[in-house]
């Protein structure tokens, strides 16, 4: 029998790795992928608690999160393509048009 806390530890580790990816990498696409990792960690948490309490709302919320992640990935990648066409770069450090 696997206790719920084991799933929570797994969620925590994935969340931390995703967070490290978001704040550390330069390549914007890898930042987006790390955001997907964070969302997955949250999903694991939700489904673990849904199983513990026997309430299926956790799984429904996880489905909505997946839908949201799809929409966000689509728009994010669209923005990256548009930016790449203009500036030929996908590195976050070099996207500094608004800097003084």
């Amino acid at each position: 029998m696997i206790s719920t806390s084991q799933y929570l530890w797994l969620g925590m580790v994935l969340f931390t790795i995703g967070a490290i990816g978001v704040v550390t990498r330069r390549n914007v696409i890898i930042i987006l992928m790390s955001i997907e990792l964070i969302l997955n960690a949250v999903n694991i948490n939700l489904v673990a608690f849904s199983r513990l309490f026997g309430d299926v709302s956790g799984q429904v919320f996880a489905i909505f999160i997946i839908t949201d992640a799809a929409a966000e990935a689509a728009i994010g990648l669209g923005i990256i393509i548009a930016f790449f066409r203009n500036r030929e770069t996908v590195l976050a450090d070099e996207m500094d048009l608004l800097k003084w």
Partner: protein
Amino acid sequence: MLDQIVFYFFAALAVVSAILVVTRRNVVQSAIFLITALLATAGIFLQLHAEFLFIVQVILYAGGIMVLFVFVIMLINMDVSLHQLQFNRQWWLGLLLALVVGAELTIAIAIGRSHTAFGEPAPASALEPSTQLVGKVLFNEYMLPFEIASILLLVAMIGAVVMAKKKI
């Protein structure tokens, strides 16, 4: 016993793939490891008896969103970025802060574990198939969020098409 082995297998696969996503130089390899991380997460869902969520994760996340990522990576020629710095200048600060967040979560789980009783989950045989359960709840109680989600997807589609056009 067996479910411990399965859980640790999927968990190890997810964690190792996640670490590789964040540290690879080649973006396509990162994408492939993200796919394995997502499939490992889907395995975790299956072990939690959330079968519908397992298949939604495989079809939408691994089979839809990641195809989108791989397409975009191929359309953008990133051979130049292979030879540049991978981590930004303030990576040490970012690492520190992310580890602080991780420590907070660890403390939260450790304290919470001793205070709330994580009782036994409901036995698996007493559950209806997850698809029927999710369907009933989704279309009765969560009908409004469902409709809003579909409008969100419509907005995202229009936004993505406009963003990627050459001439608006």
